[in-house]
């Protein structure tokens, strides 16, 4: 074990113990460790942005590029300038231009991805689950394939019904003004069941990941202590 490995190992051990001290409540050691992590992360993130984004995509073309490449850099420079001078209260409206550009670009990408990468493929998967061709060559029994497709269909419809908040356009009485149609009311109850199971699965996964993180920290601490005091 080198001196550097030993030093960083001891620092890691101390910081791990300080974070684990939160098990007995909030205390000064946990706060110190949290502040150290937040500061280190912020500093590291700034360096990553400078070396991975600003330098290769902005500074380097300006310094080493041709005149044509430099002209292309006018657009990002103007947007950066607008964002910087928007910090002055009188010029705050100028900051909306680069922010609008970023928001529009991100929204276009996200919406396009959500529609063509999630909504359409997932809907098609629900429909294809009832494809008769999947019954014969499948290794799974036919009843299981049908059950899977049925559960998927019911889960999809029921979950969507849970988020249906429409009302009748011409309610007959005051009750219909406040209540959903009976069909959606029943399906929403089924949807609650599916949503509850999903959230339970996510919660279990979070717990599982947390337990694994604790196990890894214990392994690290045990290894460091055995190296420090056990010689190996």
């Amino acid at each position, binding site marked *: 074990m080198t001196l550097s490995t030993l030093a960083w190992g001891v620092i890691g051990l101390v910081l791990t113990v300080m974070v*684990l001290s939160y*098990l007995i409540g909030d205390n000064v050691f946990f706060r110190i460790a949290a502040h150290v992590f937040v500061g280190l992360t912020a500093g590291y993130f700034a360096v990553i942005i400078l070396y*991975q984004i600003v330098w*290769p995509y902005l500074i380097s073309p300006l310094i080493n*590029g041709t005149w044509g*490449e430099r002209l292309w850099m006018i657009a990002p420079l103007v947007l950066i300038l607008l964002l910087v001078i928007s910090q002055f209260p009188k010029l705050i409206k100028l900051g909306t231009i680069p922010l609008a550009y970023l928001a529009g670009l991100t929204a276009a990408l996200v919406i396009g991805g959500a529609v*063509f990468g999630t909504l359409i493929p997932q809907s098609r998967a629900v429909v294809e689950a009832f494809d008769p061709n999947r019954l014969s060559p499948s290794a799974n029994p036919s009843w299981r394939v049908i059950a899977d497709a049925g559960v998927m269909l019911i889960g999809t419809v029921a979950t969507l019904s849970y988020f249906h908040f429409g009302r009748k356009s011409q309610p007959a009485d005051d009750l219909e003004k406040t209540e959903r149609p009976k069909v959606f009311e029943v399906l929403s109850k089924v949807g609650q069941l599916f949503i509850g199971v999903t959230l339970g699965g996510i919660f279990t996964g979070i717990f599982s990941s947390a337990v694994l*993180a604790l196990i890894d920290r*214990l392994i690290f601490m045990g290894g460091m202590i055995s190296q420090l005091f056990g010689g190996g």
Partner: protein
Amino acid sequence: MTVLICPECGAENPLEAESCRECGASLVNILPSEKPGEDFPGDEPFDFASQDANDLPGLLQSLKQEDDLSTLDETQEPSEPDGSEEAPSEEPQEQDALPEWLRRIRQRAQEEEDSVGEITQKIAAAKDTLADDKQGQQHENFSAWLESVQKEEKQKSIEDTTEVEIDGEGDREPQPGDEDWLKRIRKIKGDTFEEEETLSPEDQAGDSLLQWLVALESGQATAQEIPEVDSDETAPEGDTQAQKAEGEEIGIGDGDTMPVSLIEPVLDVSREEQELADKLRSTIADEKTARPERTREEPAAHWVVLLILAVLLIGSLSLSLFFGNQVRMPQGTVLPQNEAVLDWAEDSEDKTAVLLIFEYAAGYANEVERVALPVLQQAIQPGTTIGMAYSNPSGLLLSERLIDQVDDYLKLTDLGYYPTAALGAYGLTDQTAAGWEFIDYPESKKPLPEWPFSAVVILSNSYEGAAGWVEQMSALDPDRPIYLLVTAQAGPLLQPYYQSGQVAGMVSGMTEAAVVETLLAGEGQALVRWRSYQIGVLICLIVIVIGVILNGSELSTNERRVRS
């Protein structure tokens, strides 16, 4: 003018009316009354002479000596002296009202020139002169004084920007402030008179009148002088202080001054506005009130329970890690998504280039490494080109740590950091699509990926990050196989992408990782952690169930208590 006041609506009706002309109510048996407003106090002449004449009874009293005080009090009616001098036609009635001794004195004075002596004659002459002069002059002075007060009030109202409206014309309507300053002046004068009346007969102001008359004889005083009201002597101490604080003296002619109080501008506030103001004041006062800092008092048992649970969890995990025997993974059914990953890892064909996406945080590095290492060690062979891109800032360090454990002889291509998963995926994938060509568009100084990669492997700890890459890549390049190696918390939400065929295979969490590791590499790091993982999950489940039961019983107890 005498009118009939309607008892119902208060309207004025003529005397001959039998019913109200406004509301029609019967006016029978309604006694006539003076028309309101005609005897408005402000319209009365401010007669200093009549007030000064009140000093006269003291003098008369000293002259009378034998007569009783009750008779003297009757002569203190303010209208009597003035009426006797100003309205001779009413003399017979006044003669009846005068006491007998005064009537005898006056009769004797008319019959015998020297019957009452020189002093009495001087008093009568001085009184007449004083009354005539002062009435005229005081009225003039009062008018000037009234104008000066109005000017000062206007100026003050403008300066203070109050809501009091002053017309500034002679025929302006009486304002509440007018009543106030008149009342205050009369109060001052009234206090003076009351105090003078309460003095003993020897100390009454009649003596001062005598002194003044003597001074008048010697030429030290003039008939125009008004006995100055000494506020220090007559007014109560509190009023004096108030006058000193807010009052000043104004001239009333011939260099004489009179103390008046400056009228504060009247703010017309309704009851609702006053209530709102009171609420606001109480709120501000309540906000400014210093409160003792409330500290959350946790019972000592709570801290002890936490400590016991921590020791129990850490102790159990440590014992199972360092003192337990090696466990063997039970051979069970392999999930379809795991089987697809196994097939790809064990297939030796077409693995010349693999794109690795690092989309997990440092805190989940150990779990992701337990999931990814067996697969990558099996799939990546020496000489394989590895492209690395990361949408997490820690990706650079985490990629180095993972690759070091895979193989030392890999062709690594660093594609850099992409702040947003969707942007990165679109930017990387779109290079294979037919895009526009921009003249002189600057090339990135980073090495571009050598497409086509045979597969894309996404390592993630969150659903959002992995979904961003999957959405873009599956939409732009649907034929490219995508494999997910993710944590347990991201697995359930990414499962539909495998169901839809957008993802070719997936391994998530410790359980699946242990199965895949067993099938690919035999015993490994995942199995070392497997028993501790089971014990830790079991302890957490027990604690959650106990907590739910205790919390539920406590809630039901509180509910029963509330109901009872």
